[in-house]
């Protein structure tokens, strides 16, 4: 057992990290921070997960989000995919092990992996909409998000989702607000089997080692840690009983990498693109001078209301 973090004090606690600890900021440069925070990580042990969805419930509660009451589509997964409200979902896979002929029920908690080399941040054209702290947390600043969806294209795990209500991108924050005051993520707190634990990345790697040893002793000879080097490692890691076959866990990427187009964007295209954007901005300004500001029609308002109603109930 990994010792759980103690309950917080009821006194207000100042945030232990912030703006001064940024190591990356989308579409901008940051000065190297004066200190290096200890990298943190969440470890998800698929072999201990019972698929209860307490993590999903805790995530919705803590972030004060509400998923709509959907429908059953023939599987236990619900909702079927990540949404702007459901920042994490359980994905259930039924796999017959060809070696033992045993049915293995593989359950993977999906959500942002907090890559050390974050594709979303690299793809993001909005200055400061995506930031990375020196402890490894990749966070979105919704006030700066322009809803372009490039972060989804940049993400090797297909994680962020754009809200139809406010046209902003949403994903797991690793509960940066909780971590800032010495707490672990809400999902880890709610997990009844310690399938989700939180600590420094080093501690999590050590804890994973113990779990992997245990799994190997139980016949899972390919048990291993999922901390993919293609994205520089991640701050959300999995213990997998079959680390040689990550794809059997609801298509977990075998070797995730940032799309070459995004990498290219960081190079030449970025400047070409910026020039083009400058051109469009100039056109926009001219358009404003000639036609005046855009007006919100009654119909637009109605549509917005409908969208609000269907998305957040």
């Amino acid at each position, binding site marked *: 057992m990994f010792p759980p973090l103690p309950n917080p004090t009821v006194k207000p606690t100042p945030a232990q990290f912030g703006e001064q600890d940024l190591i990356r900021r989308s579409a901008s440069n940051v000065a190297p921070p004066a200190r290096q925070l200890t990298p943190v990580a969440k470890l998800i042990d698929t072999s201990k997960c019972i698929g209860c*969805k307490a993590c999903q419930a805790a995530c919705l509660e803590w972030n004060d989000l509400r998923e709509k009451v959907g*429908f059953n589509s*023939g599987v236990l997964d*619900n909702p079927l995919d990540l949404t702007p409200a459901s920042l994490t979902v359980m994905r259930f896979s039924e796999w017959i092990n060809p070696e033992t002929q045993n*049915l293995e029920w593989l359950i993977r908690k999906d959500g942002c992996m907090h890559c050390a080399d974050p594709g979303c941040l690299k793809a993001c054209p909005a200055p400061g909409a995506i930031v990375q702290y020196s402890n490894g947390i990749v966070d979105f600043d919704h006030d700066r998000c322009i809803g372009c969806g490039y972060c989804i294209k940049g993400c090797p795990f297909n994680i962020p989702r754009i809200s139809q209500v406010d046209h902003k991108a949403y994903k797991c924050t690793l509960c940066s607000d909780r971590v800032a005051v010495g707490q672990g993520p809400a999902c880890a707190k709610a997990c009844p089997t310690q399938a989700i634990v939180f600590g420094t990345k080093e501690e999590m790697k050590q804890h994973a080692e113990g779990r992997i040893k245990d799994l190997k002793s139980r016949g899972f000879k390919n048990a291993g840690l999922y901390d993919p080097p293609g994205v520089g490692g991640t701050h959300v890691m999995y213990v997998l009983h079959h680390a040689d076959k990550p794809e059997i866990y609801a298509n977990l990427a075998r070797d995730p990498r940032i799309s070459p187009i995004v990498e290219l964007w960081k190079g030449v295209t970025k400047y070409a693109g910026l020039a083009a954007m400058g051109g469009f901005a100039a056109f926009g300004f001219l358009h404003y001078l000639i036609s005046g500001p855009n007006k919100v029609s009654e119909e637009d308002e109605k549509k917005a209301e409908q969208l609000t109603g269907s998305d957040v109930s």
Partner: protein
Amino acid sequence: MYAPIRQGTDIAFLLGVIKYCVDNDKVQWEYTKAFTNAPYIVKEGFGYQDGLFTGYDEAKRDYNRSSWDYELGPDGYVVSDDTLQNPRCVWNLLKQHIAIYTPEMVERICGTPKDKFLKVAQMISECSSPTKTMTSMYALGWTQHSKGSQNIRAMAMLQLILGNIGVRGGGMNALRGHSNIQGLTDIGLMSNLIPGYLTIPTEKEPTFDTYMSTRGFKPLRPDQMSYWQNYKKFFVSFLKSMWGPAATPENNFAYDYLPKLDLPGYDILRAFELMNEGKMTGYFCQGFNPLLAFPNRKKVTDALSKLKFLVVMDPLQTETARFWENHGEHNDVNSASIQTEVIQLPTTCFAEDTGSLTNSGRQLHWHWAAGTPPGEAKHDTWIMAQLHLRLNELYRKEGGAFPDAMLNLAWDYKDPEEPSPEELAKELNGSVLETVIDPNDPTKVLLEKGKQVVSFAALRDDGKTASACWIYSGCYNEAGNNMARRDNSDPDETGAFSKWAWSWPVNRRIIYNRASADTNGNPWDPSRKLLWWDGAKWTGYDVPDIAPNAKPGVVGPYIMNPEGTARLFTRGMMRDGPFPTHYEPFESPVVNVIAPKIRGNPVARVFKADMEQFGEASEFPYAATSYRLTEHFHYWTKHSHINASLQPEFFVEISEQLAREKNIQLGGWVRVWSKRGSVKAKAVVTKRIAPLICDGKTVHVVGIPLHWGFIGAAKKGWGPNSLSPFVGDANIETPEYKAFLVNIEPIAGPVA
């Protein structure tokens, strides 16, 4: 390790494991010989044949159980053969009884592949070593069979022959379905009990003396504690707690005030049968949702519709309170034809209450209210007190057939309108009513009037003490509220945590803990010591069951039994046999291969109309079962938006094979129906529910989760109780929710 088993065949599996252990000499012999009744001789005349024990009366669906007992010697004690040679000793009768449950027979009945069964049996049998222990943790589904009690017994017997009871990490652990169901049972929830597992008198016990005459509990073996010998002390203290000064030695402590049962009990099935017959016309429903919980929903609706009044006390809106509302196909009733007056009394939920919860480990945890009740919600204690005061007033004014029991009820609470949780807890603990002086030393006060009793050891049968629930005695004594203790120290990491909260009895953490040491008093496993004999007394990490100075080898660990040992053979104490036997569910896809003529449990009570409502496999070929999901809790969490979003819609689970056979699509709509009702659901098609081969026949299973109704945040749906049969366990009447028959077909979904 996964070994599939057909629902309703646990006994065949478990007796198969016991047979495996016996055949392979995987028995904790010293434990079995010394701590169970294995060596005792059973009377001539007892026998078993073709699924029935001696004394069966088919017309009464009952046994004459007189032959199911021990042979007594001239000294009045049970005759024992420690060599286990006597063919009539319990051990040899057991061996004979289980002989039929070979691995091949287990496979035929249970559908468990023989190699998987043998692997499980082999793993379990390793725990016969004194240094290896298995624990059994079962959820309450195991009781939801027409032979549920015998399911539990079969596992307990296995645990006994492995020496796994009374030791660290062992035991039979029920994981109760609600946080405080253990507490409700402890304080007498069942219709035939009063608090502390004392029993309500029956009509055949009109006087105190006739009642007590069958509760002497004389030891059946020399020197045994037979703790129920103290029954009278607990019973009189209970009566004093109920009626205070009105309970006197002259009136046998108001014994006449207690109701006398005319029937074995008023369990829920009988209550609804009586309502349906129009013989029970008022129903108080406190914290239950029978419209979704009790079997044969059609019958439940009919029964509720015949009531004069229904009072629902619940923190939530329940389907039961709205049973008269038409909700289309989800509750298709004719509201105008229902005359039942329904009164809803909103109550508080656990987080708005102060009080204790008793968990499955018998620990009483005190908790404090964390919020104030919303709206008009009131504590259950306030509502009950108001009812009592108003009814009492009516009795005072109008008299009635027998007002004494009501008018004399002790009600000396600081605020009679609402007794406080602390007052009630102190009442359960008990107190001294009259000072008791040591008869040998007049200067010594044994018990001082007005003080809380320290434990049930202080209770008396002369009316000088009161205690509402003897097993809870010690929970709130002069040391204070022991249930509120929060010291989580655990010396030597034994897992006892003996200063955390309080557990009954007398803060004992492992019951029958004397059995953790061998006959000489040395721990079976030196690395997992619990109690041991230090040459002069019992010492260790827990409160011993037996007297601390009782020498090893004399007093047996099973102190509640007059034998001092645990029972592999239960004498006449269970209606359906002294040994468990495999019976099929009342609705089974296959016939009983060991007793083809017997349907279900031969002594389970079945009301006439319900017998006619059992379906046959020819018409209903699929084996259905019910269960909960992790996303929900019963019918509560469908009121919570988040839980509803996590599992929004009623579904049934079937195998890929059955889906193919019936042309059912993943996520498509199906109709599932039994002899008693019909539901519509989405189909979850899964590899997890694979067909079983039982006696050469393919058995398809249909899984039906139970969280949907017609009120709340989730989508409207049904529950398994629309389909399940109106029959219960032969001993305690828990309905057979876990095994029944249905048919299934794909249907077009509702028009969106």
